[in-house]
């Protein structure tokens, strides 16, 4: 099959609503969305706390967080694999090769991005915001909430960035998901598999979807950034 034939075939699959193909896309979107939803509350809170309070060990935590940003996805996959495998501490959950395991892995991957970006977002808020809140009668807690709200567009940028990262990662999804057809096979693991089997059409179709999703995420990010910056 030539490249143009494969590309043609890819669009036939996509537009024809091929259930297998769209099932794979759905796994990606579902897993990555749930991963983000699970990671956001704690990650945003952590970033906020690191930006707002000074306490012993804070610097060390920030350095660790920044290091985790560059953590290879296969390392997260490896660690989770060991933790979730039958002999591992969480072996009883029977999560290995399930979507739950992928969600957990992607949540772990998203956490440092979300936390680190929230940290700089909150640090970026004008010092006068908290003072203004307080002088208008806000309690400490209310003033903090106001500051977080002032950073909301930058936090949304963080969420979009995190979503982009987990959507396109493969190492962790492959290791703890296992690329099981109809269960844990997502866009990236499917592309890897189909390509190695020499079936390019589905790979191209999925690749196109991934690029479109990445574009959508970046447009969203751009929109939020624009909102946040033009003050």
């Amino acid at each position: 099959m030539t490249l143009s034939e494969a590309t043609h075939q890819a669009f036939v699959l996509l537009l024809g609503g091929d259930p297998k193909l769209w099932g794979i896309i759905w796994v990606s979107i579902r897993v990555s969305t749930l991963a983000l939803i699970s990671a956001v509350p704690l990650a945003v809170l952590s970033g906020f706390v690191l930006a707002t309070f000074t306490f012993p060990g804070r610097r060390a935590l920030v350095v660790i967080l920044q290091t985790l940003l560059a953590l290879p996805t296969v390392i997260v996959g490896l660690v989770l694999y060991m933790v979730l495998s039958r002999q591992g501490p969480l072996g009883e959950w029977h999560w290995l090769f399930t979507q739950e395991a992928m969600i957990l892995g992607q949540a772990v991957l998203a956490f440092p991005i979300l936390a680190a970006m929230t940290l700089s977002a909150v640090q970026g808020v004008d010092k006068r915001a908290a003072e203004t809140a307080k002088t208008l009668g806000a309690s400490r807690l209310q003033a903090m909430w106001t500051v977080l709200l002032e950073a909301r567009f930058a936090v949304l940028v963080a969420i979009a960035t995190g979503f982009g990262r987990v959507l396109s990662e493969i190492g962790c999804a492959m290791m703890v998901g296992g690329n099981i057809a109809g269960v844990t096979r997502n866009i990236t693991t499917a592309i890897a598999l189909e390509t190695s089997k020499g079936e390019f059409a589905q790979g191209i179709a999925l690749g196109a979807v991934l690029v479109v999703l990445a574009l959508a995420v970046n447009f969203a990010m751009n929109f939020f950034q624009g909102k946040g910056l033009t003050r």
Partner: protein
Amino acid sequence: MKPIFALQNLRKSHGERLLLNIDKLELQRGNTYLLLGENGVGKTTLLRIMAGLEAADGGQFQFDGQFVNSDTERAALAPNLIYVHQHSYLFYTNVAENIGYGLKLRGIPKTEREALVAAELVWAGITHLRDVPPNQLSGGEKQRVAMARARVLKPELLLLDEPTANLDDAAREQVVELIAHMRDANNCVIIATHDKELAEIPDAVKLKLEEGRVQG
């Protein structure tokens, strides 16, 4: 008459430099004060200390006869004592939300809040800007929003830090007029400025800050 705000023996240093060294200062209700002084003389620092946004190195403070010696005690006077920044900060919402901010904190119900905000918009002459976000406001408009946002909370002591800095003549005139209308028999307004035009505010008491001391 019992002063609304009094301080004694205020000391404040930045490093080696003794910035403020004020033996006594009393502010009375019904008065407007102009805190005059050169750049860097410590006007902002004095107002921020009064508002509890900064700690003093020493001194006794009283608000309406009550001792408020620590910065936390003074900060707790908000929003009965409000400090408006030199370049006032507006929350990234819109004009009406900004003016309603303190009312919302107080738990005032929505309909009542909206009525109070509407009245304030009229007072400041910015009704047409009701739903506009702060990044689309001019410097003078921002200043008027900040003043309305403070005024709606009816503070007994209002600290305005250079409210007319960086405004053009027309905007300055409007802000000066608003300041003149801020005062009533029960409250006290103190304005840090080196703007000569603010001297037009009728019956303002001039305080000159020089070498850390206040000259009446």
